[in-house]
């Protein structure tokens, strides 16, 4: 099966490993990630103001590319996924925004939010199925206690993301279990790490990140698992004394291909 793939800027630079593992694991699961040609940065955050058109056009372009190929659009980075999904939702529901965006785009056929936007995790759950993921595990991560960290971007706003229960999510935990490890539930798993404010106000980000890592440690986790490069940065930077790992890396480990990826 082929899907369109939007890696995003961070996966091409600071988070190359997140990207590499994602591609290899997809191969194993029989999914081809076809990188969109000439994609542009999504902008990192979705601007909710309805009159912001230009900043959302790169997303619309990517979405339309996927539409033309009749494929779902998959991303791994939480931020990209959030921006793509919110933009797509705006194209579906906000007529004025859609018509103005289409005016800029000058497409043969107007884009009205037809593309299905999937996070890599949703791809695993809804298209591949966690049972199929479990079948591919050669190196079950028995005995590892893993704390899933969702942050905010994956789940909220729920009316748009519709990924999981925003207050009590299970999608990453289900993946952890499929990989043979033990999922640790802890209170701060869907609280914000401090996000981009880290740049301006590192102390604020530190406080928030520490709350998350301490909460995971109190729940006796060995590893924190995340999908977002910025979450990983904030948690690690602010004194996490437990490893913070991308979920794709953990998959690669369980699939026994981690070394291939690093090569």
């Amino acid at each position, binding site marked *: 099966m082929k899907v369109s793939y939007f890696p995003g800027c961070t996966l091409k630079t600071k988070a190359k490993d997140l990207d590499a593992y994602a591609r290899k694991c997809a191969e194993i699961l029989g999914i081809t990630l076809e990188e969109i040609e000439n994609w542009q940065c999504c902008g990192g955050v979705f601007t909710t*103001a309805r009159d912001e058109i230009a900043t959302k056009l790169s997303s619309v372009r990517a979405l339309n590319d996927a539409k033309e190929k009749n494929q779902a659009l998959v991303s791994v980075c939480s931020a990209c996924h959030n921006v793509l999904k919110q933009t797509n939702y705006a194209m579906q529901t906000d007529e004025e925004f859609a018509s103005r965006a289409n005016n800029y785009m000058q497409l043969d056929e107007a884009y009205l939010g037809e593309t299905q936007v999937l996070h890599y995790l949703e791809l695993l759950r809804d298209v591949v199925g966690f049972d199929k993921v479990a079948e591919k595990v050669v190196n079950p991560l028995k005995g590892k206690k893993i704390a899933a960290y969702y942050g905010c971007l994956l789940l909220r706003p729920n*009316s748009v993301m519709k990924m999981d229960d925003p207050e009590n999510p299970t999608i990453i935990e289900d993946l952890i279990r499929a990989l043979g490890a033990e999922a640790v539930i802890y209170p701060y798993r869907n609280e914000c790490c401090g996000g981009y404010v880290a740049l301006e106000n590192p102390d604020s980000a530190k406080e928030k990140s520490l709350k998350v890592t301490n909460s995971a440690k109190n729940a006796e986790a060995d590893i924190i698992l995340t999908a977002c490069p910025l979450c990983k940065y904030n948690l690690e930077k602010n004194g996490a004394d437990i490893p913070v790992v991308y979920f794709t890396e953990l998959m690669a480990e369980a699939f026994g291909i981690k070394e291939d990826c690093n090569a």
Partner: protein
Amino acid sequence: MRKEIENLQNEIIRISGVNPRKCMRCGKCSGTCPAYDEMEYHPHQFVSMVESGDIEPLLNSKSLYQCLTCFACVDRCPRGVEPAKLIEAVRLAAVRKQGQNHMTANDIPEKLDEDIPQQALVSALRKYSK
């Protein structure tokens, strides 16, 4: 002056798509906000101050740049008010003014550390400048 404030208020309401009059003053948005301690004006105050037209103090407040856009308030508000969208609209009203960028590309190098992901830079620029 009154007219000016009214225009600004209408503009904020229009671009945010938020109706502050739906707020019932329960404070759930502020109860759940992770950036609460860094803010001088809290999410529920944004809603009521925009409603009453008391927008000037908001435009000049650092609180504008502390919102993490984590959408916790949007999801949890029992009245569907969506405070984060309102804060974003006020912030835009501030940074869209000439020379009012909260952060420019020139400010970045000194804040940079080598591990910081691109995503943080583009997000911050998008949020803080025009």
